[in-house]
Each structure stands twice: as structure tokens, then as C-alpha cells.
């Protein structure tokens, strides 16, 4: 607990506590629609935070995180549908599988000096590989998709992750809070400082004696492992999995928009980015529905414009300038 509080000013602790309190109280105040929006926001905040470990902390750009989301979702859903194994045990199986998958990609890339843009494209290639593979794999129903049984549940079954939005909301809220704390601890750990050194200048980091290969591997594996929860959650929240969707490149891009807009490498950036992006997109959707306009793709154009404006105008994201405004320090940590 003491380590958790270290490096957190009273002001930022108070603001974080207030935000958390509001989020905990939210289900009592808002309706089911807004609650679902909040679930999606927190899902993106969680997944963005997980991606941020690799790119924001260690400087390795992954554009194929859908592979971890998809693998984890498929592992947990298959275990549930075929053997009746609950999602939490499924998650225990998914974590090592995703970490191993990350380790394979990382090993191949880092061992052979594949870096930068080439690394990003390698990650896409693996995700596409998985997409086509699952699309043709009869065992998991190939392209016709895997469905979880949906029934009316009299009460919430947390163990099987079957229930109403309120239960899902608290699950993803707890996970997002835990991941936030984990990232906070990681950043202040020895490994966290090594990652920052690698991100800023890999050559220099190696020259000071950091085993860059090993720490980049840790970054990929930890990022993949924590991403797996988002995959399992997604599968059980939406109750269906299509390879075409879960492994698609747009899924990978979707989860990185939050941290990019909020601020890559910051702790609060992914959360803020998810709120800003999903909040605005939902507002746009509601406005269009109210006006009777049906334009598939409009939300995506909106995402694109947001991304364009942020990348061009606020290279560090929205959070660092906002943090300075709030007086909670704007350092890129």
C-alpha cells in the first residue's frame, strides 16, 4: 500500500478517489443504456492500458493486439461451451496462452532485430494469420462463429459471468482499477525504469548494461497476459465470437485510439482517452439516431478525425496538458 501511494500527490490521490467513488456510485444513478456505454468505455480503458505497457512504457508499437483479445476470448468461450468450465478458470488458461503467444512474437522479432515499423507489421501479420486460421478451423465453428448460451438469469452468477449489466460493470471497473494500480507499480519498479530507458534510447539503454532483449520480452508478455482478461470479458459480455471481427485489424486499432488520444505512456491517458472517444462517439450516435440519420461508418470517420487532430495538434495526447491544468503534474510518467 505504501508503494502504491508513493509518487502520488495528495491532490491526484484525491481526484482519483473522487473519480472512483463516482464510478462506483454510477449504477445507482444512470439508466441501463448509459451503464452499457460506461462498460464499453471501461473495456477500452482496460485494453488501452494493457497495450500501453508495451508501447507507452517500453516503446514497442504493437498493431496486432487483437490476437491476444481473440485468443483469450476463444480459449475461455471454448472451455465454457464444450466443458462448462467457468470464465475465471478459462482466464487462468488464457493468460499463459496469450503470454506464450506474445513471447513467440517477441522472441522472433527481438532476436532477429525486427524493430519499429517492421515490428508493427509483424504484429499485424500474426493477428491476420490467427484471423484466417480461426476462420477455417472447424473445431471452433470456423467463420460461422462461436456463441455462448444466452438465457434469462434470475440472479447474477459472478462465477460464470452470467448476469445483468450492473454485474459486468463492476467486474470491468474492478479490473480497470486493478490494472491502473499494477501499471502504477510497474512504472515505479526497476523494470519500469528499464522500460523507459529502452523507450527513450535503446542503444543507450544497452550501453548502460540493461538486458534490452529480456525487458522487451517481459513488456510483450505482461501486456499480452493482461490483455487476455479484456478478451475473455468481451466474449462473455457480447456472447459471440467471429474470427472476422475479433482478430480484425480494426479491433487492434480501436483499442490503441484511447491511449493515443489520452496520452501514450501516461497512466491516466488510456482512461481519459476511452472516456473522450467513446463518450463523443456515443453522443454522435445518439444525435444521429435522434435526427433519423443512418450512416454506417460515420462513427469511424469521427474516430479518424479525432485521431488526426490529436496526432497533429497534441503529440503527447490530451492528458499531459490537462494534468498541468489540474495541478497534478504533467510529467510523462
Amino acid at each position, binding site marked *: 500500500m505504501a508503494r502504491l501511494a508513493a509518487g502520488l500527490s495528495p491532490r491526484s490521490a484525491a481526484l482519483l478517489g473522487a473519480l472512483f467513488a463516482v464510478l462506483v456510485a454510477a449504477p445507482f444513478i444512470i439508466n441501463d443504456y448509459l451503464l452499457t456505454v460506461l462498460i464499453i468505455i471501461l473495456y477500452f480503458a482496460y485494453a488501452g492500458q494493457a497495450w500501453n505497457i508495451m508501447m507507452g512504457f517500453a516503446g514497442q*508499437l504493437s498493431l496486432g493486439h487483437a490476437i491476444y483479445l481473440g485468443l483469450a476470448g476463444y480459449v475461455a468461450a471454448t472451455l465454457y461451451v464444450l466443458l462448462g468450465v467457468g470464465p475465471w478458470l478459462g482466464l487462468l488458461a488464457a493468460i499463459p496462452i496469450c503470454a506464450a503467444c506474445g513471447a513467440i512474437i517477441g522472441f522472433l522479432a527481438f532476436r532477429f532485430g525486427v524493430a519499429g515499423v517492421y515490428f508493427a*507489421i*509483424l504484429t499485424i*501479420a500474426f493477428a491476420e494469420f490467427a484471423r484466417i486460421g480461426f476462420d*477455417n478451423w472447424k473445431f471452433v465453428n470456423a467463420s460461422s462463429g462461436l456463441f455462448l448460451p444466452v438465457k434469462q438469469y434470475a440472479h447474477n452468477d459472478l462465477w460464470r459471468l452470467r448476469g445483468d449489466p450492473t454485474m459486468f460493470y463492476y467486474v470491468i471497473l474492478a479490473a480497470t482499477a486493478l490494472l491502473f494500480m499494477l501499471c502504477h507499480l510497474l512504472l515505479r519498479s526497476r523494470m519500469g525504469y528499464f522500460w523507459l530507458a529502452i523507450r527513450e534510447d535503446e542503444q543507450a539503454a544497452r550501453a548502460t548494461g540493461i538486458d534490452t532483449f529480456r525487458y522487451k520480452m517481459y513488456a510483450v508478455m505482461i501486456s499480452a497476459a493482461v490483455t487476455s482478461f479484456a478478451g475473455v470479458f468481451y466474449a462473455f459480455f457480447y456472447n459471440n465470437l467471429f474470427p472476422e471481427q475479433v482478430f480484425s485489424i480494426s479491433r487492434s486499432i480501436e483499442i490503441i485510439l484511447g491511449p493515443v488520444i489520452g496520452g501514450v505512456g501516461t497512466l491516466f491517458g488510456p482512461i481519459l482517452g476511452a472516456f473522450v472517444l467513446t463518450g463523443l462517439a456515443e453522443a454522435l450516435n445518439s444525435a444521429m439516431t435522434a435526427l433519423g440519420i443512418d450512416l*454506417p*461508418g460515420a462513427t469511424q470517420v469521427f474516430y479518424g478525425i479525432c*485521431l*488526426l487532430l490529436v496526432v497533429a495538434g497534441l503529440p503527447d495526447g490530451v492528458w499531459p496538458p490537462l494534468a498541468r491544468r489540474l495541478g497534478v503534474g504533467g510529467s510523462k510518467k
Partner: protein
Amino acid sequence: MPFDVYLNVAVGGILTGLVYGLMALGLSVIFGVVRVVNFAHGEMMTIAMFIAVVAFSAFHLDPLIMLIPIAAVLFALGYALQTGVINPFVTRPEHAQFLLMVALAIIISNALLIMFGPDARSVQTAYAFDSYQIGALIIDASKLYAGAAAIVFTAALFAFFRLMLLGKAIRACADNHTGAQVVGLDVKRLYALTFGIGAACVGAAGVMLTLIVDTTPLIGPSYTLLAFVIVITGGLGSLPGALLGGLLIGLTEALAGLTFSPSLKSMFAFAILVLVLLFRPQGILGRRLS
């Protein structure tokens, strides 16, 4: 399966590969000179494909006639994009450029979706079902014309870079950015020209692809990836490498589609990419990375 089936499919794959090669050439030219990875490459191609499809359905203009005009439109688009949006990013970190292009890609493909809807469109030319027969070999007329046009376009591009002063100036920019500025080249304008040329290549390739495949607003990402696979396989920045990569991937896709299943064909392209990245990261004809 009899040998001549394989031969026919292989020839078809090579002809498609020529068009792929031209598409990848655009990407390679842009990366080789401007050093920006054009992640919106496939989406720019989709714009060209839609212009060709609309020109055909509205005015019955054959894609082969529209080749040069559409390439010119894409040139203008590329030129404007580079001067208006991308130029400030030339000195920014790689991932910032990447995300900028991702943003453009998302905007282009979804704007096309809003304008044209999700349905697949195709060009039904009079020669769509014609073919030429040489012995046991049967060649689709559409693929033959597309491949031939790709060869002509590529040859013109090589001549431009080798023979014309402007082409040499662009190569000078690619070789030594500071040196090019010192001898008085307007590097910004040359960058814009290069991006325009790259866009024209992919535009021309897109027009020819309308003869071979259906056009939908959301095919962009898969062709962007395909262009990357080809360019990395052949060697990023190497023009002959892009062509060779295109032929190789076109041939692989065709044979994999025949031997296994068409839905598995791009898996083989990605397998080649992974192998190349691991064992020869600079690509088959690429220069050693520093």
C-alpha cells in the same frame, strides 16, 4: 489435378502479381524517398477503384481508357496530402507518422462507405469473359490487359527515375536529404511530387484491379497489408524488389488458392512475410539495413 490447370492458374497469378507489383511500387517509392510509411495505401487505391467503377457505370468508360486520367487524379491527391497534411510529420517519430496514416485510412474507407454503401461493385466489360488460348494455356483477357498495362506503367516509372532530371533529383533526395538541400533542390516540392507519383502508381493499379476483383469500400486495409507484405518481401525502398515481391505473392496466392482453399491464400502471403522478416529483414533485393 492435371499440369495444365496449374500452369493456367500460375500464369493468372503472375499477371495479377504484376498489378500487385505496381501497387507495391507506389508504397516503395514513397517510403524510399519521403521515409513515411503510407498506411493508407490500400485506401487510396480504393478511391481510384471507385472512380473507375463509377466512370464505367455512369459513362461506360472502359477502365483501360480511364487509367491515365485516374492516375492523374490520384497524383493530385497525393501531392495535396503531402503538402497539406504529411509534410510536418516527416521529422516526427515513426509511430506518429504511422498513426497519422491510420487516421487518414480510417477516414477514407469510411467516407467511401458512407458515399457508396457496403455493396460490392464490379466492372462488366465486353471482354470480361474473353480469353486467349495458346496451346494448353488459357489466359483471361482482363488479366492479360491488366498485366500488360502494369508493365507499361512500371516501365515508364523506371524510365522516369533513370532518365529524366526530375527523377534523378528525387533519387538524390532519397540518397542524401541534406546533400540535396545543399545543391539547391526544393526538397519539400520533390517530396510532394514523390508522394503524388506513389499515389498515381497505386491509382493505376487500382483501376486495373477493377477488371479482376470486385470493389467494396472496406477492401482497403487488406490491400494495404498486401502492399506491405510485397514491399517487405522484395525489400523496402527497392523498386525491382517491389515488382519481384508482387510476382512472388501473386503466384503464391494463386497456387495456394488452387491447392488448398481460396480463403487460405493470404495466410501463405503472411507466412512468406514472417519468413522474410526473420531471415532476411531487408528483403530479397533490399539493401542491408544500417
